[in-house]
């Protein structure tokens, strides 16, 4: 049986036994290589489920849809390891009760899809642990390496050019599972900290604010990257912040549902190299 068939059967079982009220998975998208989220409430709907190497979007953000979990019933969800990590962060930040979530875990590497064992977030902790251990020392991304090699002026010019395309559509925010605030800071207009027009200053403000709000929280799922209609390599900014946070505080986002947010926690042995 293919992985797709196995998981289809599991989804059906979960629904028919009443263990979950809904399974969030993938179905065919607008083009053959695209998948879109599929919200399955009956075993029959599970037939349209697709699970293959094109299923790369992180679905965890759908779990915090207003009211979805307030009836305390369980929901099943297809998640890659990055999705499990963001699930852990959402739980750590009190956005959901992780006991309500049944994980259907899988992974995609080099266009190969593999099944992952376990169904609770904590069943994947060893896997996430090993992900932390195997974070590459070098960026591993040719563009990021190029950016790292630039001096401050060149780097600023690079991002200025990239951000100049930003149209402030906030698709990155909508796609990100971590952007769950009911009112985003950019929507505040008393005072209006972030300029709403798509000019250099406002574009920088927005993207830098987002980078800080995601430092120590981004799991690098790439939802923002893929959502961006003007192809700004947003993931690189967050990858850089994640790298800094790991180096300075040994913090790898989404290790567990009890992990403290790195920017809000203070430990006596925190490095103080940044205090002048």
């Amino acid at each position: 049986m293919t992985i797709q068939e196995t998981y289809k059967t599991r989804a059906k079982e979960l629904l028919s036994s009443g263990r979950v009220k809904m399974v969030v998975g993938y179905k065919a998208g607008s083009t053959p290589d695209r998948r879109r989220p599929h919200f399955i409430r009956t075993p029959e709907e599970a037939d349209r489920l697709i699970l293959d190497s094109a299923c790369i979007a992180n679905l965890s953000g759908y779990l915090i849809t207003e009211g979805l979990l307030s009836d305390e019933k369980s929901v099943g969800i297809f998640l890659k390891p990055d999705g499990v990590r963001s699930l852990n962060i959402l739980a750590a930040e009190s956005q959901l009760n992780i006991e309500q979530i049944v994980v259907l875990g899988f992974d995609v590497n080099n266009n190969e899809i593999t099944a992952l064992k376990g169904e609770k977030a904590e069943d994947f902790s060893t896997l996430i642990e090993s992900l932390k251990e195997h974070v590459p020392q070098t960026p591993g991304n040719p563009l990021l390496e190029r950016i790292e090699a630039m001096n401050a002026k060149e780097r600023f010019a690079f991002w200025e050019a990239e951000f100049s395309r930003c149209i402030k559509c906030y698709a990155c925010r909508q796609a990100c599972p971590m952007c769950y605030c009911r009112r985003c800071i950019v929507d505040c207009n008393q005072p209006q900290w972030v300029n709403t027009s798509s000019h250099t200053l406002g574009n920088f403000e927005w993207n830098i604010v987002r980078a800080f709000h995601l430092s120590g929280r981004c799991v690098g799922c790439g939802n923002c990257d893929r959502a961006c209609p003007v192809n700004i390599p947003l993931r690189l900014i967050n990858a850089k912040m994640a790298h800094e946070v790991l180096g300075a505080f040994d913090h790898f986002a989404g290790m567990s549902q009890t992990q403290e947010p790195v920017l809000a926690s203070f430990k006596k042995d925190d490095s103080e190299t940044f205090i002048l």
Partner: protein
Amino acid sequence: MAKIGVFICHCGENIGAKIDCNKLAATVGEHPGVAVSVEYKYFCSDPGQESVKKAIRDNNLTGVVVAACSPRMHEATFRKACAEAGLNPYMCEIANIREQCSWVHTDVDMATQKAADITRSMVEKVKRNNKLQPIEVPVTRRALVIGGGIAGIQAALDIANAGQEVVLVEREPSLGGHMAQLSETFPTLDCSQCIMTPRMVEAAQHPKIRLLTYAEIVHVDGYIGNFKVKVKMKARYVDMDSCTGCGDCITKCPQKKIESEFDCSIGMRTAIYTPFAQSVPNKPVIDKANCTYFKNGKCKICMRSCQINAINFDMQDEFIDLEVGAIVVATGFQVQNNAVYGEYGYGKYPDVITGLQFERLASASGPTSGKILRPSDGKEPETIVFIQCAGSRDPSKGVRYCSKICCMYTAKHAMLYAHKVHDGKSHVFYMDIRAAGKGYDEFTRRAIEEDEASYVRGRVSKVWQKMNKLMVRGVDTLLGKPVVIAADMVVLATAMVSQPDAKEFAKTIGIGYDEYGFFNEAHLKLRPVESSTAGIFLAGACQSPKDIPDSVAQASASASKVLALFSKQKLEREPVVASNNESTCAGCWGCVLACPYNAIEKKDILDRSGKVIKRVASVNPGLCQGCGTCVTFCRSNSLDLAGFTEKQIFAEVMGL
């Protein structure tokens, strides 16, 4: 409609010399909303304040900006003046054009322009200020004194004698600290223990003092007037209530070769021990690391020797929660490890000792009963070389600062040696003799002139052993010649350093420390005994190297600060506190973790049927200290700080 009064102070020449105040007043006067813009030589003077009050009354001002020195100096002065003129004091702001402008710039035109920017930015802020009301909080009239050395004891006694409760916490098994280890004290040569022990006993028996020895501070929460402290009572394995202090257990303990901390390793102690004969409380503890029973599971000889069954090997650490209104930190110092000076041979030659070890040798209660004897062979030394600044004033290996007491105690050591060994010869290598203090210079002169200590100005480069002697090679810089002295003993005037865990401790209780681990005072000159955290005071050598008179004086000063705090039933607090917008709060609780004062709680918002529809953060204004950490953390901008609201800050920035 805003009617803001701007008052530009010359501060004599401090501001006036670099800023054209007339021009500044004219420029700012044109800013929208500014009703009055005037300059004056000294607004902080009585006539200056009167003119501010008059301007408020005459013009019905809605806000005041005083462009002057730092708000740390006169914010309170001008807010009070505003209140007297009937304006809410929080409608007054200070534009700092001295520290942040005139003092740091030389070009008058540009400095004036910058001062105008700073002032206008403050005008924009004041337009958005709210009329705040002060918050009242109760004061717990009980003080915690941390450290039972002379400073801690003095502070505790002073507070207790004024009728307030004190909890005195000491981490060693006995009160006493370093002073109890000393032989005789400069400049009067009275026996240290003879003047120390009555104080220890007085503290232990005082009805207002609760003494907790062998105890450590684990956690401190809360704020001035309302601290919550968790204390760990380390297991003594001896029941404090029933033990009579007879000492039978100590005599019987088979472990007799443990280096005594109190005797600086030149004396030995047992595994069940009291640090010294006059220990307060005079009840032993079991040193778990060295006890035969804890190591091998067999022995319990002390238990059998105890006639009242006071020994209990099952005892566990206990935790006590205290509520106190003020804290005095008197955690003391340590001496630097001289092993860093390989050339002096400390640790290699047994007869090279530290000043504190010499104190134990010279002390009547010490391991040699006050006889000066060499640790190697027990012989009386005929010649002793004292090396001053062994660690102090040495940026390469030791510490940069002067340890302050070494010149004095070295002179004392030379003197004690002369009194005990009449034909002994002492040589003192020194950089300078720093003997500032009442009777101090007379004291060092006495050591040189009457007790014939030979002072050699210069440093020692090497100490090595030759036959039975320690050869000391140094230089006499006054003669410009190298000298070699054959000595029987070498005493190093070791640097005073902070406690090894001082930084850790400072973080636990929430006070600042310097690069050396000494605790920071709020202001070196004007607030020397207050830490930067309100309600926490400093006493003794935990702040900087100090001698006994200074430690005692600082302890009494701290006590007077505590008593002033306890003189009121309630404490009036600034209403600069955070508040949360519950409708936009996302309930991530980052602020709950970020808050250093535990002032943010989780709050449930219920619907009519009592069902939780939302959980949000809620700030307790009694606990909030207005630091703003939560505001900077909040991603949805739901938290805001009164007096520094987002609107005010934004207007301030935009006003530039």
